[in-house]
């Protein structure tokens, strides 16, 4: 347990700096983009000079960039994410409304790609170079090469428009007043297509990684020893080869969480899922700096937490990890 705690402490200190850099970097990037929130707003409404001045003043955009950054950081220090100009609501509320949808989408997609990917990887890696291995490797490579939005559109056309098995989008049925299990089932039905679109693309990664890892492990001496002991092939595959090839996949899981967040921007748009990714896209288009900063911050925290969990899991899975910290 102490090993995990030490790891946690070191990580938390580092994270604060990472977050600060992320916030300032994003702020400067958005500042460098031409046009501000008022420009984005009047693009859809029009308005005269007086109105534009009034809006700039009301949204605090008549202040210098440095003042705004300082104000933002000061508020952030008090855990206040500020007010969104797009929604005229506290950013905390806007984000909290969308976060569960994104977490659900990402979590399910990660579970799908990791679970199915590693299972198929074991299946393929059980006999490297065999027919099943070839078939799965080519199939997964093809899937990996497909752009996410395209896969999403194909799934919509086949399963929502033609077969009508699943809804074309959204997170749940509109104003259906469903509660409890009914509602959960409804949400699950809505998630099938977006989770598949997002999950299947990353599935290939885990599959190939598992397979490659296993091919490596097969050549190790202890496998030979296990064979010599007369263990069944099944036990060698699952208990020795797959188990040792699993570790890099866990690392990948942490790294992929950031990728998955990026991928969900596209999938959320295609499937009209009201999540963080789509919100981020809207925030950029509207030049809603505080909202985008809020989203990036939450995403960064999310990625840091996931990686931390992965590290802790790693420490438990592999006794060698963290041994140096524990000794220090």
């Amino acid at each position, binding site marked *: 347990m102490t090993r995990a705690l030490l790891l946690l402490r070191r990580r938390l200190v580092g994270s604060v700096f990472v977050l600060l850099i992320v916030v300032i970097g994003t702020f400067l990037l958005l500042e460098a983009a031409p046009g501000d929130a008022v420009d984005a707003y009047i*693009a859809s409404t029009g308005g005269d000079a007086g*109105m534009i001045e009034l809006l700039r003043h009301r949204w605090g955009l008549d202040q210098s960039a440095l003042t705004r950054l300082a104000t933002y950081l000061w508020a952030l220090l008090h855990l206040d994410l500020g007010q969104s100009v797009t929604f*005229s609501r506290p950013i905390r509320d806007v984000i909290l409304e969308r976060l569960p949808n994104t977490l659900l989408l990402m979590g399910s997609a990660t579970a799908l790609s990791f679970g199915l990917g590693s299972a198929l990887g074991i299946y393929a890696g059980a006999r490297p170079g065999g027919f099943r291995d070839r078939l799965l490797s080519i199939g997964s490579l093809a899937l990996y090469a497909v752009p996410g939005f395209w896969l999403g559109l194909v799934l919509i056309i086949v399963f929502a428009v033609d077969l009508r098995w699943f809804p074309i989008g959204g997170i749940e049925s509109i104003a259906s007043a469903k509660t409890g299990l009914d509602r959960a089932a409804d949400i699950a039905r809505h998630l099938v297509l977006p989770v598949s679109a997002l999950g299947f693309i990353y599935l290939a990664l885990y599959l190939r990684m598992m397979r490659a890892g296993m091919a490596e492990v097969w050549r190790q001496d202890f496998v030979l020893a296990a064979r010599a002991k007369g263990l069944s092939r099944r036990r060698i595959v699952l208990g020795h080869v797959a188990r040792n090839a699993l570790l890099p996949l866990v690392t990948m899981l942490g790294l992929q969480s950031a990728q998955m967040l990026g991928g969900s921007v596209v999938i959320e748009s295609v499937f009209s899922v009201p999540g963080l990714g789509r919100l981020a896209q809207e925030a950029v288009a*509207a030049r809603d700096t505080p909202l985008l900063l809020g989203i990036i911050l939450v995403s960064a925290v999310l990625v840091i937490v996931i990686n931390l969990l992965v590290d802790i899991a790693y420490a438990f899975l592999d006794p060698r990890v963290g041994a140096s910290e524990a000794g220090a």
Partner: protein
Amino acid sequence: MSEVTISRRTVLAGSALLLASTALPTIGWAQTPKKGGRLVVAADSEPRNLNPAIVASNGVFFISSKIVEPLAEASFDGKDGLGPRLATSWEGAADGLSVTFKLREGVKWHDGKPFTSADVAFSALQIWKPLQNLGRTVFKDLEAVDTPDELTAVFKFARPTPFQLIRNALPVLTSVVPKHVYETGKIEENPANNAPIGTGPFKFAEHKPGEYYRLEKNGDYWGKDQPYLDEIIYQVLPDRTSAASALEAEEIQLAAFSAVPLADLDRISKVPGLKVITKGYEALTYQLVVEINHRRKELADLKVRQAIAHAIDRDFVVKTVFLGYAATATGPVPKNDPQFYTADVPTYAFDVAKANALLDEAGYSRGDDGKRFSLKLLPAPYFNETKQFGDYLRQALAAIGIDAQLVNNDSAAHIKAVYTDHAFDLAVGPPVFRGDPAISTTILVQSGIPDGVPFSNQGGYKNDELDALIAKASETLDPAARTELYREFQKKVAADLPLINVAEWSFISVVRDTVANVANNPRWAVSNWADTWLEA
């Protein structure tokens, strides 16, 4: 067909027919509207302010016109193209200093309070004039609104204001909101801006951000037996392909404002049960315009502008960019406008040889590489068609030796580059014609507009004659004389080319054939839908 006498036998035959084929679309004779049902509509964006009295834009009206009503709405057969809503009659004084509105009796706000002339006075003076994007121009001389009784509102103007202009502005600019809701606190921060309270056929029920808006039937609506629908849902579908899929999968019944891309219309029109409708947008005309920065020495030369006008094949643009769903333009007023349009203006036939000759005459001969000069071209990003026309224009200009470099921006960056920084030579813009040139059209060529005002003359163009004409028209009270001045205006713009009008287009609706009373007024998508009903 609506005159058919319905006998017992035909009714029986009719119902047998219905039983035989439930998929049969609209039967010929007039049907009695059915009550009830939920209409699900595609929405591509979520306006941040739903108060149409503050933001008079189509994106806002699409949703809030069902909740908040204007004094009058556009109509195909009404006098002056108007049909009464909250006002039952309107009359302008001969001196142009006042307009008297008689208001509808027995109208209630959604919270049960009675609607009176005080609400109209409040909306006009506290919102339309000081806060509304368009009202700030049209109502700038509005001084007071007298309310002699609860159902009369008299608008008093400081300077003579043409009644014709006020009349034409009624559908777009005069959404009335309740005084008792808005009189306390800051109007811009009132929660009712995001959950509007109005007098319309539908009440605002809820907004789930990123998912949908839900409107429900107003049981106390003043229209007899209206509305027919129980609910309207606006389902937010941000992806451009999803509206078509949702229609096919029968998850939505209507996609307005060309939510289904033009390229998909041909396919979708063959899907059984779906109709493609081009009617119902007659008063919502967008104009495809080449905006010109007259600060560029080459573009300040009329011959160069004429050459560019001759280099554009308008028929090709209509056919290829708009797939035929548009009309070629001759000047700053669209052809489909019933009051002001004149075809009697200088025109520029597609003629590359002539364009080249004009450029030679102007002294811009081709260099060794075949190029005369380079330009920066910024197509507005709001529509697929403006972007595609940008691509076309680049090629059209290449044919006359002008090397146009495309700069593609998103909305915010485009607005800043063109209207504030003037960092463009040519831009492609889609201004809207709003029924009267004084609302948002003359501003496109008039001089003296401060930097940063979008959809206005930011090209540094100044023509004293044209400015004088615009000023004169803005204070001419006699409608015939005023119309004549705007015809003169069209001629002058077409002759001097402060900008180049290329085409005019509007939107397409795709709708299930079970939705009845679609497109029955010239601003249908942004009107009240009180008489819309569902067959199934």
